[in-house]
């Protein structure tokens, strides 16, 4: 064992300095009756052995499928520079930057991340990150409850079901009422939202593009939401911000989302990145760490964690959130990714995603048994209706080498024949054509 550094000589000198006879003496506060009933852990292995074993496990996963699976989590290319930079251990072996003078690198990077998020979403303030898109949406909902003092929330069914379910789980003991409003022809039903929108509503939650991939301009809903004194919240897919109208432009008070597509691997569900940005009026209710610029004794610019009185380590049970550890390293990935892209690159990337998806639509709609839903414009993800059960088709498509999208029947009643397809910049023309051929074959089988 080479992990613990103390030599026998060190140990005996240290014990002598402490004034005890053995290491076991240091544990004398743990009564005999509380000692472990068992501790049946295998003995340690060498680095080589552990790596060999874990590499075998990695090989058991299928990673050679050509993916059209998105549903909120996307297969985008990650530039090598992102991995190289976050692999610097001066970043990843540091803790939360409590001591600003010895953490300026981290603090500045987070300040830059906050700036990038605000720019992306067209809003005033961001925090240093949250766990994921779902918890970010929950935090936004709770901000709205505190800001309005109300407990009713309208949620559009175009919001990812996973996030809606998380909202309900988190608030199950808080007597918050949720009203789900339907998506009609791809778009949020104004009629239904407005029907429920009254002076008791804390927030209206929408997603753009919505779960079916459809894009929308929610300006009208936001306006009506504000007329009722409620908070408008949007969940956003960040890559689409290279093209689509921002939450800020639509007037939203708070925007959140999953930052995974910004240079973070899919990694079977985490670690991911929850981002949140808001109008400055909401600042005091923001959860989590926030970095601010200030000056040092010599008036040089520097960065610190600020507005900490919102947080659990000071405000305890009155804190705006219980969050402590966040996803800083993923936020660093995001800001590096976004700066590598730049404004021009992000726009090109968004266009490429859009064009690929439109191309896929044109290929797929020629296939007998496939109907591309075209009632709403989309970004890089769209819905097709099949003449057969989508679950069965997806199953067959695995054998043909494809992760053929998300069968919507899994989340929505009555949509068993619908399939949600994501087409990122990584999908080539050949892959899309081959996908079309395979789908056609699968439908004929």
């Amino acid at each position, binding site marked *: 064992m080479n992990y613990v550094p103390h030599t026998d000589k060190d140990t005996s000198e240290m014990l002598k300095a402490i004034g005890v006879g053995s290491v076991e003496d240091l544990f004398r506060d743990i009564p005999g009756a509380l000692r472990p009933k068992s501790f049946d852990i295998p003995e340690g292995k060498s680095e080589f052995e552990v790596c060999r074993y874990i590499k075998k496990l990695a090989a058991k996963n299928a990673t050679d499928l050509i993916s059209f699976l998105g549903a909120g989590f996307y297969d985008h290319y990650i530039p090598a520079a992102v991995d190289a930079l976050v692999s610097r251990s001066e970043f990843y072996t540091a803790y939360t930057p409590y001591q600003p003078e010895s953490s300026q690198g981290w603090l500045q990077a987070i300040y830059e991340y906050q700036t990038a998020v605000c720019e992306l979403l067209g809003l005033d303030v961001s925090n240093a990150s949250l766990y994921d898109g779902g918890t970010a949406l929950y935090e936004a909902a709770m901000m709205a409850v505190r800001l309005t003092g109300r407990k009713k929330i309208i949620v559009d069914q175009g919001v990812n079901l996973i996030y809606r379910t998380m909202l309900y789980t988190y608030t199950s003991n808080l007597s918050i009422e949720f009203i789900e409003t339907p998506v009609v022809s791809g778009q949020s039903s104004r009629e239904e939202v407005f029907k429920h929108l009254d002076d008791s509503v804390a927030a209206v939650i929408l997603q753009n593009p919505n779960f079916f991939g459809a894009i929308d301009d929610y300006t009208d809903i936001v306006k009506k939401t504000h007329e009722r004194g409620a908070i408008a919240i949007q969940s956003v897919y960040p890559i689409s911000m290279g093209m689509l109208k921002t939450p800020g432009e639509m007037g939203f008070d708070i925007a959140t989302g999953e930052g995974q597509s910004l240079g973070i691997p899919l990694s079977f569900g985490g670690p991911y990145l929850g981002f949140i940005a808001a109008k400055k009026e909401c600042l*005091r209710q923001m959860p989590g760490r926030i970095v601010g610029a200030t000056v040092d004794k010599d008036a040089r610019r520097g960065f610190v964690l600020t507005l*900490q*009185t919102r947080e659990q380590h*000071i*405000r305890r049970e*009155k804190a705006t959130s219980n969050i402590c550890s966040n996803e800083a390293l993923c936020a660093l990935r995001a800001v590096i990714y976004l700066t590598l892209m730049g404004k021009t690159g992000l726009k090109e990337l968004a266009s490429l995603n859009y064009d690929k998806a439109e191309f896929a639509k044109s290929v797929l709609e020629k296939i007998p048994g496939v109907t591309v839903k075209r009632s709403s414009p989309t970004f890089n993800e769209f819905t097709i209706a099949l003449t057969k059960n989508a679950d069965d088709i997806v199953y067959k498509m695995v054998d043909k080498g494809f992760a053929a999208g998300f069968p919507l029947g899994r989340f929505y009643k009555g949509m068993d024949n619908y399939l949600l397809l994501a087409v990122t910049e990584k999908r080539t023309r050949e892959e899309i054509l081959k996908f079309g051929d395979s789908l056609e074959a699968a439908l004929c089988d």
Partner: protein
Amino acid sequence: MRVPDELLYTKEHEWVSVKGDIATIGITDYAQGSLGDITFVDLPKVGSVIEQFKRYATVESVKAASDVFAPVSGKIIKINEELTAHPELVNRSPYDEGYFAKVEMAGRKDISNLMPSAEYKKYVEGLA
């Protein structure tokens, strides 16, 4: 530490100045000194009703948030809007420019629960 003679005080270091039915309220010099640099004052809305010795505001410094209790009961008729942009007024001028709010008092009987300056001075000295 300043303890103006004409004001009344609480054990939680709030002061009140009564003119007719109207009370002006804030926190004492001692309070601002022990809080350090004040960075934010969270005040209730005009029109809200406050109750003697119950929390009605929060003052924040960099590393602490402290509750502020109402020295008298009544309705807030004015808050010190200047504190939003300039919380440092509480440090600089706790009894004047750094006041928190003006209150239309619910009655006069609250006053008997407050300390005159001499008593408060003695109380604070006892804390040291």
